[in-house]
Each structure stands twice: as structure tokens, then as C-alpha cells.
């Protein structure tokens, strides 16, 4: 088992007040698996991903339970030891491609940053690998983009740059935190294709977080439904979508707009 999250609970503390964001979360993932977490905003799905990634400020949250990644409990690691995993074994892409890149750093420097942090590779080799990762992420002209700045790129391209930067060290697990929510539908479909390709070619496991049931259904093998910080239902995509056991899941599925009606009967690809 590559990843085992057991009884994970996350509480945000501010002064005397504490809010539970995630309660008793359990998830197991194998190498190369694609698992989705769905839920409405505030259901705790992003917090779960950020906790796994070690991005929450330890002074502001109380985390209990365990996150065993390749046998090591990430929650017991020091910040320094955790950094060895960040960007190397575990990577993340975010919802906001427009603001997730540093505006004053070139695309090339941002894609190869993990290489600079985790390896002792020379400049030329780093560049070669960065260009390779950019091609893998579906960027068609890596050489030209290498010297560009984020503002010169469209939202879809920036998300591809984020993917390239996340994949440059070929992590075992990619966390995708609503990566297509801010993009329009055509671009969204293309990015999903790219993620599917990466999973097939590189064997990278993907934990895909979304509120969009359709997207999760088309990409994932298994799915976890969350509501108010708790897992409501989980299982294979077929199970959950075609034979939902819980009322909430049924309501969530029923709440999806009927595609035919919305698109005037035209299927989109």
C-alpha cells in the first residue's frame, strides 16, 4: 500500500475557538491508482489534501491520526524531514493557475525548482529535464516557454506549467486540488486527458479533488464522498454513481445539471 490515511482529523485553532475541518478520514491508495474526493465547498476535501502535503501551519492546526506514505507516517516527521517528500515523492497542483505561479520568475525556473531543491544536477541537465516535463504536461513549445513569464500564458497553459513543475521529479503521488475548476470546459477536458496520459505513461497515482461529479467519474477508479469533514460514502466509481447508498450522495448526483438539456442536445467532447 503506497498511502494509508487512518483516523485523520484536522482542527483549526484560533485562540479559544476550534473548528473541526476533517473528522476520522480514512483512505488507502495503491501505486498508480486514481482516486477522487468529491464534496461541496467546505466539506474538508482541500484541507485533507493540504494536510497530506504538509502545507498547513503546524501552529494553527491540530492534526491527529496517521498518514503513512510508503510506510512512513508523515505526521511524525520534522518539518525538515517532510521537505524531503514535498515536490519529490508528493506533488500538488492547485485550483488557481493564475496566481499559483510566481509572477517574477521565469517558467523554466519554476518548473525546475524542485530539481534545484532535491538534486545536485547541473544547469543543463535541469533544463533538459524541465523541458521534458513540460512536454509531458502537454506544453507544445517548451523551448520558447522556458524563458517566458507567467503573465504571458493563458490559464490552461499555466496549469500545464504547474503540472510540469509538479512532475519534474516523477513523484509517486500527484494531488490535484480542483485543478480544472477555474478553466473553461474545453481546456478542462484537455487537462483531464493530460492527467490520464501521465497516469498511464508514468504510473503516477493521482488523488483528484473536485466538486464536479462528472469529472471525477470520467477520470477516477475509486471515489470518496465527503460532507462537513466526514466521509459519507466511498467505493468504486460504478458503485457510488450507479448504486449510491447514502441520501447525500443521491442528492449530489441528482443535483447535476442534465447535460442534454443544458447543452441543447449537443454532446461536447
Amino acid at each position, binding site marked *: 500500500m503506497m498511502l494509508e490515511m487512518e483516523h485523520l482529523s484536522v482542527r483549526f485553532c484560533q485562540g479559544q475557538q476550534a473548528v473541526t475541518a476533517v473528522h476520522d478520514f480514512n483512505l488507502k491508495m495503491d501505486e498508480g491508482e486514481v482516486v477522487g474526493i468529491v464534496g461541496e465547498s467546505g466539506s474538508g476535501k482541500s484541507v485533507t489534501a493540504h494536510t497530506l502535503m504538509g*502545507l498547513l501551519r503546524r501552529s494553527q492546526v491540530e492534526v491527529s491520526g496517521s498518514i503513512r506514505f510508503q510506510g512512513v507516517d508523515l505526521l511524525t516527521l520534522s518539518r525538515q524531514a517532510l521537505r*524531503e*517528500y514535498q515536490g*519529490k515523492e508528493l506533488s500538488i497542483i492547485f485550483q*488557481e493557475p493564475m*496566481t499559483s505561479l510566481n*509572477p*517574477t520568475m521565469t517558467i523554466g525556473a519554476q518548473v525546475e525548482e*524542485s530539481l534545484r531543491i532535491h538534486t545536485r544536477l547541473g544547469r543543463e541537465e535541469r533544463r533538459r529535464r524541465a523541458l521534458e516535463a513540460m512536454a509531458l504536461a502537454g506544453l507544445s513549445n517548451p523551448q520558447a516557454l522556458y524563458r517566458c*513569464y507567467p503573465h504571458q500564458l493563458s490559464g490552461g497553459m499555466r496549469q500545464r506549467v504547474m503540472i510540469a513543475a509538479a512532475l519534474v521529479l516523477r513523484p509517486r503521488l500527484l494531488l490535484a486540488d480542483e485543478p480544472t475548476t477555474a478553466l473553461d470546459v474545453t481546456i478542462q477536458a484537455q487537462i483531464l486527458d493530460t492527467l490520464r496520459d501521465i497516469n498511464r505513461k508514468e504510473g503516477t497515482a493521482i488523488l483528484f479533488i473536485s466538486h464536479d461529479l462528472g469529472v471525477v467519474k470520467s477520470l477516477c477508479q475509486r471515489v470518496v464522498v465527503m460532507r462537513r469533514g466526514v466521509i459519507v460514502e466511498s467505493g468504486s466509481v460504478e458503485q457510488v454513481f450507479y448504486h449510491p447508498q447514502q441520501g447525500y450522495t443521491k442528492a449530489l448526483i441528482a443535483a447535476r445539471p442534465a447535460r442534454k438539456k443544458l447543452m441543447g442536445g449537443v454532446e461536447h467532447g
Partner: protein
Amino acid sequence: MVKTLAKRMGLLLLTLLLVTVLAFLAFSIIPGDPTSSILGVDATPEQVAVLREQLGLDLPIWQRYWNWLSQAFAGDLGTSYNFRMPVGQLMAPKMSATLLLAALSFVLIVVISIPLGILSARHAGGWLDRVVTVADQVTMSIPNFVVGIALTYLFGLVLRWFEPGSYTSATRDLAEQLRYLIFPALAVALPRSAMTVKMLRGSILSEMGQDYIRTAYSKGNSQSSVLWRHVLRNAMIPVVTFLAMAIADIVAGSIVVEQVFAVPGLGQLLISSIGNRDYPVVQAIVVLVAAVVVVCNFAADLLYRVMDPRLKGR
């Protein structure tokens, strides 16, 4: 880019021209006449008339302005009524004192405020940050000449680290000049530094909350490499612009603080020349200060474009 630059250059020259017109007009409006300070109050009307003709004061104002302007373009700033020597020659030694003071002040501002701003932001909310913030508020609200008087009292009279009023530009020894000027420079620098610290701290903290910082952490960056590689580059953009514009303010501040520390710089010359209605000198100093202000604004604009890739090519 070239087009923008040319446009800005044109605007720069126009601003300077306007400043000279305003300075000329202001002087023709205020009462007083250079002849009375040169000849004394007992001069006969004939003597005054002769001198006025000599100085060209009998001409209409637009003609006087035109004469001055065409001479200035040829590099001749005129002759001081009072000192009977070319304005350029008169100003040169004074200018070096003022510029040295301004340069030293600028260095002090950078040396004081950048580390303090970073330190304060890094430990935001901690005791160090609180001390800096309070000290900042206090320093910011005291005018530089008051700081100058306080420094003179403390370091000059109590601690006797320097002898107030002992500065002479005749002392050719640069080290000695700097040793004296460090105190007036501190007076000029402190209020500005306080503002810069406040600005840098705010700028760093706001950058730290940006999404790209989260990305940087997710790649395995340590806290300090996030600060040095990601935050500062972005946080410095507004601060550098602010500092470039502050240079103009420093020059103006130096002129006031010179009085407190008896530094024979442009400030003293300016004030005595206004009193004596020594038009050519005043005009030259006003143009010089205006030129510094305008050029610094221009430089700030350029720096902004260089540092922020989003503005390149615009």
C-alpha cells in the same frame, strides 16, 4: 518601450521648464529688490537705476526670463549679484557637501530599513516586531530637523562624539567629512527609514499570503529559501520605487538639516540668496532640486519596469 521612454523624457524636460518659469514668476511677485541688499538703504535713486540696468533688471520679465534661459542652455547660469562670481563656481563646493550628505543618508536608509523590515516581517506578531513597530511610529512622526537637534544634543553635547558646527568643506579629508556628516545624515535618514521599514514589512507580509508561496512550499522549499527566492523579489518592487522617489525627498531634507548642523551646503546658500534677492543663485538651485526630483521619478519608473516582468515592453 522606446516610445514610452521618449514620451517620458519629453515630459521630464517640460516639467523642468515649467519649474523655471514658476520660480521666475514667484520672484517677480515677492517684494524686495537685489539693489538694496547690494548698495544698502542709503543709495541714491541714480545709483539704483544704474545698477538695475547693469543687472538687466530694467528689462520686462519675459525678456529677462528669455535671456536667462538661453544662457542656461549654453551652460552659463549667470553671475551671483551678491558674491560677484559665476553661479556655477559658487555652487560647486556647496553642492558637493549637500550631495555627499544626501548620498550618505540614502545609504543609511537602505542599511537600516531593509534588514529591519525583513526581520520585523519574519517575526510578525512577536516581541521584536512589536518593538520595531512602536519605534517606527515614533520615528516617523518626528520631523528630521527635530531629530537633528536631538542628535546634536546627544552625540555632540552629551557624548561629545563630534563637535557641532565644526564642519568645513575646506577639510579635504573625506573620512573626516563623512565622520561629521554621519549625524546630519542620520537625522535625514531616520524618518524615511521608519517609513521604508513599515512599507517593506507590509509588502513582505502581503506577498507571503499569495498563492505562489504555497506552491513554493509544496516543492520542498525551506522557510528561508521561500523568503529569499520568492517573497523578497516581489516584495521589493514597490519598496525600490519608493526609495528611488525618496531620493528627491532626501535632497530637500538635507537642505533643512544642513541648517541644524551648520553644514555649508546648498541649503545655506539657498536661504541667504533668497534673503538677498540673489535671483541667479536661487534660480539655479531651484532648477537643480527640481531636476533631481524629476530624474528620480523617472528612474523609479524605469526600475519598476525592469523589476516587474509584467510591465516589460509596455
